[in-house]
């Protein structure tokens, strides 16, 4: 059998496994590739441009929040009957984005998918930042942001406790747990790489800063042994956690009796949708990041191909849920439910519905073709479309159902205000800002993990 060329790992031959890293795969060059990004004095010019834009958008986000807090929730478009609108759409959207990180870092880890090592670090970072963005929306839309701590169960001088049977409180607990565990997982995995940055540091401040965060990691056998167990256990805990988080988000809707919301398939359907949108966001970020930072040897075309397959698969799962909901709306014989589904497709928000179907169901079907799975610009476009589609999905579920419920006399439309739009755009700014800072200052690829799954550890020339 022939040895695969060093720069190609797209083999589909069943007789061999594709390389995880193309080009030189020794530990030194992997370290060099990843560390050089943070060590060079200046990032690429594109980084500055992107940072300036996203920082400006972040500023806009905080300005909008400041205005919202100073003036009151009346500045949002939420109003009778669509009381839950834009902020919740954005919340569900962002928390969904976060799910791919845990999928890649925890679930694929449990499934021994070694290719995950190329992208898990920045998918995890994406999770943390997306959860941060998601958390903003429910917090600021409550009206009195300053008493948001009332959601926490602490002994207080009012003598009351939160209502633990409310899905909204489950949300609070689930999201904060998810945020905490994601950060722990991300940070734990990063400790050995931070130690690498510390050891390579030339300036004293880099040694001190990276040294502090590396916690004095030495890579001794005892440390690695416990590290691996902790990592495995965290993965085992994060896997059901990620399922539970979006399930809990879906409970917000599904425990109610509103047509279009009350459907038993919501939990797995929301989880699938979340992973779907998250994977699309990974591709959206990975395509530019790998070329901008010279990571094509570590985040290979194979990685993107795999991610696109995941997008296709989860797209089909989401399509399955759409189909079953439609079927059951008819089969169940509940006229309100049937109307809710019809209203989505033919009502005033039909544009959103059909755009959603086009983006979530039709566009990913292009990934059946290998050419589409491996053409960066094309997959980037599809991934962006999926992100748009998944945002619209939440919009359709929330706004279309609330706008037209049981009583025709209480029907109404939702129109976003400028503050709404600024907050959505600003949340992208915050997300990108955090991500750009991460790219600049932290190891974007899990070096120690990649080294552990490529030769010489596996004892054969770059193939495993």
């Amino acid at each position: 059998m022939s040895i695969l060329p060093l720069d190609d790992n797209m083999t589909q031959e069943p007789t061999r496994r594709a390389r995880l890293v193309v080009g030189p795969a020794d530990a030194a060059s992997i370290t060099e590739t990843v560390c050089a990004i943070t060590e060079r004095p200046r990032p690429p010019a594109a980084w500055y441009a992107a940072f300036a834009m996203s920082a400006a958008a972040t500023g806009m986000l905080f300005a909008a929040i400041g205005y919202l807090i100073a003036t009151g929730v009346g500045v949002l478009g939420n109003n009778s009957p669509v009381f839950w609108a834009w902020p919740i759409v954005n919340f569900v959207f962002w928390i969904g984005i976060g799910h791919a990180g845990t999928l890649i870092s925890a679930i694929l880890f449990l499934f021994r998918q070694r290719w995950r090592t190329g992208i898990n670090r920045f998918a995890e970072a994406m999770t943390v930042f997306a959860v941060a963005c998601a958390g903003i929306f429910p917090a600021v839309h409550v009206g009195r942001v300053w008493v948001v701590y009332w959601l926490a169960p602490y002994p207080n001088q009012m003598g009351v406790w939160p209502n633990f049977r409310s899905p909204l409180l489950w949300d609070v607990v689930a999201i904060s747990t998810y945020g905490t565990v994601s950060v722990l997982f991300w940070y734990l995995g990063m400790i050995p790489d931070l130690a690498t940055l510390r050891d390579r540091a030339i300036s004293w401040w880099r040694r001190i800063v990276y040294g502090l965060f590396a916690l004095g990691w030495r890579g001794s056998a005892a440390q690695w042994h416990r590290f691996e167990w902790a990592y495995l256990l965290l993965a085992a805990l994060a896997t059901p956690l990620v399922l539970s988080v979006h399930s809990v988000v879906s409970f917000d809707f599904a425990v109610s009796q509103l047509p279009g919301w009350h459907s038993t398939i919501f939990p797995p359907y929301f989880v699938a949708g979340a992973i779907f949108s998250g994977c699309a966001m990974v591709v959206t970020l990975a395509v530019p990041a790998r070329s901008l930072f010279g990571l094509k040897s570590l985040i290979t075309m194979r990685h993107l191909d795999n991610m696109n397959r995941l997008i296709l698969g989860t797209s089909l799962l989401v399509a399955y849920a759409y189909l079953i909901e439609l079927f059951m709306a008819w089969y169940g014989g509940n006229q309100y439910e049937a109307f809710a589904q019809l209203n989505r497709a033919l009502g005033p928000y039909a544009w959103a519905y059909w755009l959603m179907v086009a983006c979530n169901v039709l566009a990913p079907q292009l990934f059946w073709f290998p050419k589409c799975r491996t053409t960066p610009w094309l997959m980037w476009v599809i991934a962006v479309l999926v992100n748009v589609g998944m945002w619209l999905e939440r919009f359709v579920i929330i706004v279309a159902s609330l706008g037209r419920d049981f009583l025709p006399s209480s029907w109404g439309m939702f129109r976003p205000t400028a503050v709404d739009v600024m907050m959505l755009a600003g949340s992208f700014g915050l997300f990108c800002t955090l991500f750009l800072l991460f790219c600049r200052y932290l190891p974007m690829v899990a070096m120690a993990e990649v080294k552990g799954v490529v030769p010489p550890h596996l004892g054969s020339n770059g193939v495993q």
Partner: protein
Amino acid sequence: MLQPEHHHDDSPPVVGILAEFDGPVTLKAAATGLRQVGYAKFEAYSPYPVHGLYEVMGRKRTTLPRLVLAGGITGCLVALLLQWWTNAIDYPYWISGKPLFSLPANIPITFELLILLGALAAFGGVMVFCNLPQLYHPIFGCVKFRQSSTDTFFLAVDADDPRFDETATADLLRSLGAESSELYRQPRTVKRIPGMIPATAALVAALALLPPLWIAQVRYARKTSPRIHPILDMDFQPKYLPQQYSPLFKDTRDMRPRVAGAVSVDAIIGHVHLLRGEVDSPPADTFPMPVTSEMMLRGRRRYDIFCTTCHGLAGDGDGITSQLAFEREEPKWVKPLSLHDQPVLGQPVGQLYQTITHGIRTMPSYRSQIPVEDRWAIVLYVRALQRSRNATMDDVPGELKKHLKSIEQSDAGIPNAKP
């Protein structure tokens, strides 16, 4: 690279020998070899985990999984207890007809806390078991060791291993496949915590005492300044509550006084007896309502509140106000009338009512303080007070008469008793 074999006494102590290996396989073999020879205090370093290495070094498997399990179980129990106690016991929530403690709705939070405490146990456990953070370690003093996190594998044998010998151990390591081996020493760094740090800490601690002291002072002092409520929320709403300020009217009252000269409809269309105490214009001699014992009791209670201050508990005109006024020699004070004096005794009830309503001489009107029914009740009680001074045996009801007589007789039996 080369360390002189002879060293002066002031050179730092040897920590151990650091040997370099070219890969995980040789490292693992060497670790196995060291262990077989009988070395116990040595450590292996690698840029990524080498499976099986820890085991061949003869170390015990970590108990982290059990710790995580314990964390998970704790989270589970804490969540269940918390939800049960808070929502079913301490602050019962009655939600959509479900039982106060309804398990299905408690599952999500139970699950999340299970995961959270499990994850915290995993992270905390790895920190504790790995002895992290441990920012200083003598091995960081070796220049070569900096390569260990990139691509180089090391074995470090501690100098305090009983078998340690500078040359023999180095030879052994080389025979086990080490590419090189060197002694490494304690780096020269500051061992004692610099005095500035505890001094600063003490200063900060002292300053930190000030806020609690200030809070304690505020907590136990009377404050004339307005309450400190940083966030007013809806404490003050734009609505009018009784007796509050309103800029709308000149007199700044939000409650509007009755328009001057307004006449109650009741007074026009009837109820003259009740409201004015009149029957065909002269003061009434009868009560406008049936006289009951409840009314009498009510009258007594109201009398005690409003009348005793001047007229005294028994109506003798010796109320506390009067006493004080005389004590202080108030020039304008006039002793209130005794209700047992002739002019009052002879007045019809309607006139007594009118007196309460409109006042008389120095006595002010009590119209605004005492409602109509209560005024009549007071009149009734005043009548009872007056009667009590002039009662005869005929006034006593039958049952009580016997009782009184028995008291009288027993009193009579006592020699010194005066009737």
